[in-house]
């Protein structure tokens, strides 16, 4: 187990290193002279040359990377040329909103997918299983930006529920309840895709597990169907579910962007799109780095959980 974790951590560091090179190089792919970009086209070439040197752009690209990664490891992602705010503080303000949305959406998705998958698996091809199968497939084909628009249309506008529509976001620190209200629709929207995937993955794995001989043996002990489902079938059936959840949560950052943009919620996605609009490249670089490392880290955490859930995996 310790060996396995050590190997995984080494892999995590390796992948993060590759990501850092990628996001560093991103800036270099941009056309134009940064000095011109910062000082504007009217400044003198002499001033530009000074700035060029100040920025360290005269050094080799490897040296530049080493200086940059040194700063990154000390928690410094630079200061935006556009807003003159520190990139780290901008990200620190936006990231909790994404985390909150993802957290809420995952609670809804798991709390609905797990019991419903169990119900379906108990009687495959029963009426509930058929309804859920057809329903989940329909939901799968509706993209989040349609769901959020429909939800806003019905809930915020037709029903007139307060604090749910566009631009109604209130930070968590300001008012917890209003904050929650303002994130209900976007979190729900994000949960739909997760629910469908989790429900389908868990349902089919549960159906397979329930055929196993050890389930028959558990029944022969005289324990309840409910206990067999939760204590015997759920755990060995949840490996694929957890793996999917790891990948899916990473993906949620991307679908979160769309929802945030539509409702003007100042999370990472909204910030990223604004940064692209204003050519705030350092901010773009910072967000890309944080999101990519975050996705890798989430998958690492889920791999770890899978190992605890199914000890066979690290033994092999």
């Amino acid at each position, binding site marked *: 187990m310790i060996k396995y974790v050590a190997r995984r951590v080494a892999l995590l560091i390796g992948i993060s290193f590759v990501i850092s090179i990628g996001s560093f190089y991103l800036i270099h792919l941009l056309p134009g002279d940064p000095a011109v970009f910062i000082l504007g086209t009217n400044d003198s070439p002499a001033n530009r040359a000074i700035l060029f040197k100040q920025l360290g752009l005269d050094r080799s690209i490897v040296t530049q990377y080493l200086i940059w990664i040194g700063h990154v490891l000390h928690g410094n992602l630079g200061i935006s040329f556009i807003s003159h705010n520190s990139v780290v503080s901008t990200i620190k303000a936006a990231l909790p909103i994404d985390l909150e949305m993802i957290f809420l959406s995952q609670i809804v998705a798991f709390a609905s997918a797990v019991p419903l998958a169990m119900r379906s698996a108990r009687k495959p091809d029963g009426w509930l299983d058929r309804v859920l199968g057809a329903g989940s497939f329909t939901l799968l084909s509706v993209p989040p930006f349609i769901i959020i628009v429909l939800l806003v249309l019905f809930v915020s506008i037709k029903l007139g529920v307060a604090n749910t529509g566009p631009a109604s976001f209130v930070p968590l620190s300001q008012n917890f309840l209003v904050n929650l209200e303002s994130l209900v629709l976007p979190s729900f929207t994000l949960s739909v895709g997760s629910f469908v995937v989790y429900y389908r993955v868990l349902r089919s794995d549960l159906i397979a597990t329930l055929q196993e001989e050890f389930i028959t*043996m558990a029944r022969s002990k*005289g324990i309840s169907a409910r206990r067999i489902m939760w204590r015997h079938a759920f755990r060995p059936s949840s490996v694929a579910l957890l793996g999917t959840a790891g990948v899916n949560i990473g993906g949620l950052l991307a679908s979160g962007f769309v929802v945030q943009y539509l409702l003007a919620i100042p999370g990472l996605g909204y910030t990223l799109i604004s940064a692209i609009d204003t050519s705030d490249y350092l901010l773009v670089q910072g967000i890309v780095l944080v999101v990519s490392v975050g996705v890798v880290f989430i998958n690492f955490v889920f791999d770890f959980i899978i190992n605890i859930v*199914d000890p066979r995996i690290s033994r092999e």
Partner: protein
Amino acid sequence: MSPDSRHLLEVDQLSTTFATPHGLLPAVSEVSFTLQEDETIGIVGESGSGKTVLARTIMGLQPMTNIQVEGSVLINGFQVVGASDPEKRKHWGTDVAMVFQDPMTSLNPVMRIGKQIDETLRVRLGMSRQSAKARAIELLTLVGIPSSTERYDAFPGELSGGMRQRVVIATALACSPKLLLADEPTTGLDVTIQAQILNLLGELQQRLHMSVVLITHDLGVVATRTSRLIVMYAGRVVEIGETRDIFAHHRMPYTRALLDSSPRISNPSHTRLLAIPGRPPNLLNLPNGCSFAPRCSFATDQCHNERPPLTPSSEPGHSFACWNPLPISTRSEMS
């Protein structure tokens, strides 16, 4: 059987039929037998003769869908046939328990073995966490698992096949069942371990005063360990009686064929074993007469057209289903 002895298990005209996409499959047909307290009965037959289905039907473990069960099974007075799962659950584990065939698949791979044993104790007997754990460790010791306190926390994957089967037995014994159904308990194990497990079962049967139904395809297994024997073919009882009578005075040619196909210590080495010609019949398309007739060298027209009923033989409790039984004087080389 003395009339006043109590029947722990009464199976009467039990039939199990599966509805398959290809038609009805009679896996078990009109099986009747009784079992007294403290008695061990053996059920033998080739693979596919319906032994496992019979055991699961007796316990009522079959899934409810696509299955038709007729007849009656009384375990300690409880009618299993037609009972709902919640009703049967009250008897599973405490009145009747099963030792499963394959220890590699019958334990939950992601649950510590100790937890699998004390789950039964806590749920069924309402034991506290500590006393259930203590009892589980006791049970592990009882079935001969060394350093059982440490093994309590092991996962099944960390144990050998023989050790796992001991865990399966310990789990079945947890609530001291009156009736134990052992469904080929040693088939998945190598020969030296087989004897250990069977001896363990025999020892426990005597110590705990259980009745045991020992299912096997290996006649050597039942010879010394059972008082009575049922020979099954194509889902039917073809011969039933005291074990020594079956070995010495069997009447059904199938029983003879089964005996001839088992190796014996008394035979000189390199004796060729006799394989039974042909294959067991397709249960979806059974012959009208005796199911064994197509493979039987004594078969007549009557055998092919009319099914032989169970007929009493000369010894008490010994019956066979055959139109052309082996003569009574026939003695197997065994006796």
